């Protein structure tokens, strides 16, 4: 008896497996071009800086979205390294400390920029994790914890790229970059041994003109021995003024109205 049941089960499971395997083939629509198209698209955007016409971009984007997710996963660094904490877990003080360290380490320019400098920007103050509030956080437990995780997410490299991918397509990014490359006259006397990254946060109007610009590591401008930094920051601001209005996408204003440009002269100067 049991043998029969066993046999029946075995055959049934084989059948199920076979069905499961064949199902996707059955369900696939007979003609489905988008995957092929989108592969091509990625190649184009990777190599060209010419933005697509607005309409084409929209339609292509729709097709692309599915593929882009896949592609970006492969491109990204492994997703954020933080522990997968349950949101209802109360964080221990040690955990919070670790988290804080992680935030600082994950910055764009990890070596030189000190915390004191980084906090000088108004924009960033809000985003930075405040170690003084650890006690408060422990008390408040649930919601607060969820929020810190969210903040971490924002600051890690991988998710930044993620957000970026959602706001600007590669070709749109290329168009913007190409425009600024042309406007930026690098000061030629820059030192070799220093960090040459200027981060500028912009608020843009819909037509791409700049409403407000702020240098994020502002305190570094007036530090002794960092005279070159002021010169570099000024050259970046000058580039933006010359470039105005920026070549932004015609749609999705909400996504790119706040834009951060990282002017990085390291590669150019150090080769």
């Amino acid at each position: 008896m049991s043998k029969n049941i066993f046999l029946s089960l075995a055959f049934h499971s084989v059948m199920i497996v076979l069905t499961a395997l064949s199902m996707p083939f059955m369900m696939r629509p007979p003609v489905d071009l988008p995957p092929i198209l989108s592969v091509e698209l990625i190649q184009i955007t990777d190599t060209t800086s010419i933005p697509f016409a607005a309409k084409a971009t929209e339609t292509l984007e729709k097709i692309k979205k599915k593929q882009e997710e896949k592609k970006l996963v492969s491109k990204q660094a492994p997703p954020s390294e933080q522990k997968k904490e349950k949101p209802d877990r109360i964080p221990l003080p040690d955990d919070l400390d670790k988290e804080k360290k992680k935030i600082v380490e994950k910055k764009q320019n990890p070596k030189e920029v000190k915390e004191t400098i980084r906090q000088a920007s108004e924009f960033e103050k809000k985003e930075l994790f405040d170690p003084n509030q650890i006690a408060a956080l422990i008390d408040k437990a649930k919601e607060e914890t969820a929020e810190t995780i969210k903040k971490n997410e924002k600051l890690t490299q991988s998710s930044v790229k993620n957000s970026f991918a959602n706001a600007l397509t590669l070709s749109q990014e290329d168009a913007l970059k190409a425009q600024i490359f042309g406007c930026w006259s690098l000061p030629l006397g820059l030192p070799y041994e220093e960090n040459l990254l200027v981060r500028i946060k912009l608020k843009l109007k819909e037509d791409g003109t700049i409403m407000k610009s702020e240098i994020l590591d502002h305190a570094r401008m007036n530090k002794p021995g960092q005279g070159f930094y002021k010169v570099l920051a000024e050259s970046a601001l000058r580039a933006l003024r010359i470039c105005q209005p920026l070549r932004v996408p015609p749609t999705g204003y909400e996504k790119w109205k706040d834009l951060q440009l990282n002017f990085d002269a390291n590669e150019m100067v150090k080769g």
Partner: protein
Amino acid sequence: MKWLKDNMKKIYFFIIYFLLLNNAAFGLVEVDITRGNLDPLPIAISPLYVEPGSVEVKVENDIIKNIGEEISKVIEVNFKRSGLFNPLKKDSFVQNPDIAHIKPRFEDWRLIKAQALVTGKVTITKDKLRTEFRLWDVVAAKEMIALAFSTTPDNWRRVAHIISDKIYQRLTGEEGYFDTRIIYVSETGEKTQRFKKLAIMDQDGANLKYLTLGNELVLTPRFSPKNQLVTYLSYFKNLPRVYLLDIETGIQEVVGDFPGMTFAPRFSPDGKKIIMSFAKDGNSEIYTMDIETRVVEKITDHTSIDTSPSYSPDGKYICFNSDRSGLQQIYVMKSDGSNVKRITFGKGLYGTPVWSPRGDLIAFTKVHKGKFYIGVMRADGSGERLLTENFYQEAPSWSPNGRVLIFYRETKSDADGKGFSAKLWSIDLTGYNERLVETETDGSDPSWSSLLSK
């Protein structure tokens, strides 16, 4: 099914949680700008406006008609030579100097693609020359720096150099090097019988003066990094003698007679010692001498030939060349002679190391396969970069800001490969901006002074 029902809450929670995460990812859009153009910065140098009623400037019997224009020309030449700036042609300027100095019409200057603008005003009374200048950021439409200098009229070139330095510093973030002088050995006559005189000039070649008569052989003049003192080597009755020369007063002083094969005396960074190499017991070693007390101290003690010492700007280390490994290579040691470390391991011979005033680099001459190279590397020997190559060139000397090197190059003076000529050349750290330094006669062994106005 039961499981599903029981865990429905959890599933909902996870769905919402992931939606939230996704939402959080819509953060700030970041774009990395990693390229720009490396063209020299376009700068407009408006002629300085001379106030009406000013007297004419007389400098050594020459009457300078428009001193404002002359000053702006000197600044222009300085910037052109630096390779970092592109001074725009004056005939494209729309605005008059007098109005430009009060309030420039930035749109006009933007039109000719200027990114920076220099304006100024000169007031001349009988024995006073007052020069003021402003540097404008044309794109941002604001003033970047404004200064005024008063001096005697015959100092007008120095004023132009000081203004150049201030602008250079404001626009590049590092100190300028225009208000400086270069001392070199002026050479005339056939190759076998050269007359060598000490000559000094401004870094742009103006105000040339000869300091010795040419009846004695002079070699390797070197500026003190602190003040306007020069040490050099001269032969007196066929014995090498080290001299000190105060350029301001013209007073010369013998530091001492040394045995044969004395080479390249050079100052310590504080200007209190002279470091050199000589062969006391038949073998070349490095010695220092205190200028005040004349006490000589032996630094190296090795059976090989050690020459060409040069201090690091903090005075803690000395680089020199030695053949202790069999071939001539560059070594670094502590200033007391301990911790000797070889830093060059490349093919060929390395010599004449000179530590940059900024401290980060060492310049050297390299000989490889019959060619001479001037190059730089980090103080630990890494990052070697050869800046220029030729048949014969050597003796690099740093500009006070550590950005430009001056050296001399010997070539055949005519197309047939005959004759002989030695000229001074300068090259900056990029290796692209190589320029001939115009001198009246042939020249060798140049040395760059520190900033005069420091």
